[in-house]
């Protein structure tokens, strides 16, 4: 059975329809890349799956792990194993990274019927995961994402993912704003988390990230619909001919014209 089954999903923000009938099936352990030009709806799809209220679902359904995903609050989706790595991680002054992550982890563990971690267990876990992401431990005591560089923020997202161990990770343009070294670190962190019982949806504009995180499937999104699906070679094809080669224009430009 598929872990995630999206059927004919429609969503809008304000009066503007952004997703216009998306269907996608993700099995356990699979990595799906969603590619597309700016404004095609990639990030909207990621946010809708995580439960952002800004977007209103106007049609279709999403079944996750046998449950109606769209009926669940964002926190319940997270507790059930969905994780969104944000394109723009939010700065939260006044809340320490450590406190935040421990609260998140223990809520999720409690939900899964596992014992909550005490400070010691938590610290040990966190040390190990930070090593994986080559992160400075000092970041733990800082407020969430506050004053972090672009690269630190993205690492922090994948670090959180490593700690929370989701069943379905959605990576929203995790490569944006990263230099090549940071990209390698982030990608190797993600690859270390690949496992037969963890699926991933990797949203990206560029093929570059997919050299490091090699997907099982690639889908091309245009104007709120998947216009082409294929294997990892589709990404290479796109790299060569660009979105224009598929007859797709940059949709923000179109909207502006």
């Amino acid at each position, binding site marked *: 059975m598929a872990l995630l089954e999206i059927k004919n999903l429609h969503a809008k923000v304000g009066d503007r329809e952004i997703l216009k009938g998306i269907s996608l099936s993700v099995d356990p352990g699979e990595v799906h890349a969603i590619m597309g030009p700016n404004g095609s709806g990639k990030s909207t799809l990621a946010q809708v799956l995580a*439960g952002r209220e800004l977007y209103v679902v106007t049609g279709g359904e999403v079944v996750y792990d046998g449950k109606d995903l769209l009926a669940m609050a964002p926190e319940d989706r997270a507790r059930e194993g969905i994780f969104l790595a944000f394109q723009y991680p*939010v700065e939260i002054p*006044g*809340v320490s990274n450590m406190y*935040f992550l421990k609260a998140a982890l223990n809520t999720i563990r409690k939900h899964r019927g596992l014992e909550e971690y005490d400070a010691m267990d938590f610290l040990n876990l966190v040390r190990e995961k930070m090593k994986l992401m080559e992160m400075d431990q000092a970041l733990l005591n800082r407020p969430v994402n506050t004053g972090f560089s672009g690269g630190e923020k993205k690492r922090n997202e994948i670090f959180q993912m490593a700690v929370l161990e989701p069943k379905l990770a959605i990576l929203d343009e995790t490569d944006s704003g990263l230099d090549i070294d940071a990209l390698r670190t982030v990608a190797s962190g993600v690859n270390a988390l690949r496992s037969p019982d963890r699926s991933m949806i990797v949203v990206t504009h560029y093929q570059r990230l997919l050299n490091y995180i090699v997907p099982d499937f690639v889908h091309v999104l245009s104007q709120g619909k998947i216009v082409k699906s294929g294997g990892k070679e589709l990404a290479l094809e796109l790299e060569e001919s660009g979105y224009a080669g598929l007859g797709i224009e940059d949709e923000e430009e179109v909207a502006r014209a």
Partner: protein
Amino acid sequence: MTAVSEQTGQWLEEFTNQKPFDTPAREELRRAAFSRFLEMGFPTTHNEEWRFTNVAPIARRHFQRQLWEPKVELPAGVERLPEHEYRNWLVGEQHPFVALNSAFMLHVVMLRVPRGAVIQEPIRISNYACQNAGDPPVVHPRIVIVVGAGAHCTIVETYAGTGTYFTNAVTEIVAGDRAVVDHYKLQRESLEAFHVATLQAQLGRSTNFSTHNISLGAALARNDVGAVLAEGSEATLNGLYIAGGTQHVDNHTVIDHAMPHGTSHELYKGILDGKAEAVFNGRIIVRKDAQKTDSKQTNKNLVLSDNAVINTKPELQILADDVRCTHGATIGQLDAEAMFYLQSRGIGKGDARSLLTYAFAQDVVDRIKVQSLRDSLERVLFEKFHEHSEQ
């Protein structure tokens, strides 16, 4: 509106019946104060200083006077001055409630920190009021602290109680040259109480003074905080006010840069829920001689409900030309992006709200240097926001 004479009538009767002080000078002060109070009466909302705070619930009520009996903890090295030495220190009787305090206070806590003494432990003055049978009580706390040149001390005032009562407090701090004085007031009065408090500080040359005004309780709270700076002195006025239900909290501050090279920092933060109303009025005066003044004022408000009201107003009176004064006020809601971020990590909506609300208050709490006070405040805030999140 009730005539001023009716509202002051009960006070007149009580004043006339009270036993005179033994010291004629002190009795004279008291009489002068009372006649000032009679002239002014209780302020109405026509008075600019009281425009957003209606004290009719106090003025209309009959209170019975109660002896003020605080718990006073004095660290070694702090001296208690005899009460008969009391004279008019800092506060003029321009404020009706200060005049009322001067007219009705039964005793003063007068303390002196000797020149050069460095007192580590805080001076604690803890107040607890409670309503018994009959009319609700009124207490008029009066504190005078004289800090000698170069001395260091910390003062913690706390106010708490049960039932309906009226606290009308006045604190005067005279800090000598180069003294370092940290003052804290934690107001956790009962939610049926009235709390009116005036703090006035006079700073010497190169004196460093800070006050942290934490306002959590009372149905109606009004704080007047004033500091007059001398040459090169530094004043920090921080405040945190949290109000819900139908609470009303009003903070009026006046920073008076009377001499050159003074520095002042002011940070007041408010969290409002329910139908609460808050007022922040921050006046900064830079007098003609006060060149090279550096002053910064910030007021930030977090409004959690559609029915809460905040009136915030900076009042800058700058008469010198070579100064730097900045001010800013914000009124905002919880950040929707931050809420979603926390929820997307499994943290429930209620917990996310309380976490962000707590975070908003954090920088004022972090500035509290007395560990025990900070700990107890953190506990109180944690419970308070948790309670909110359950709704």
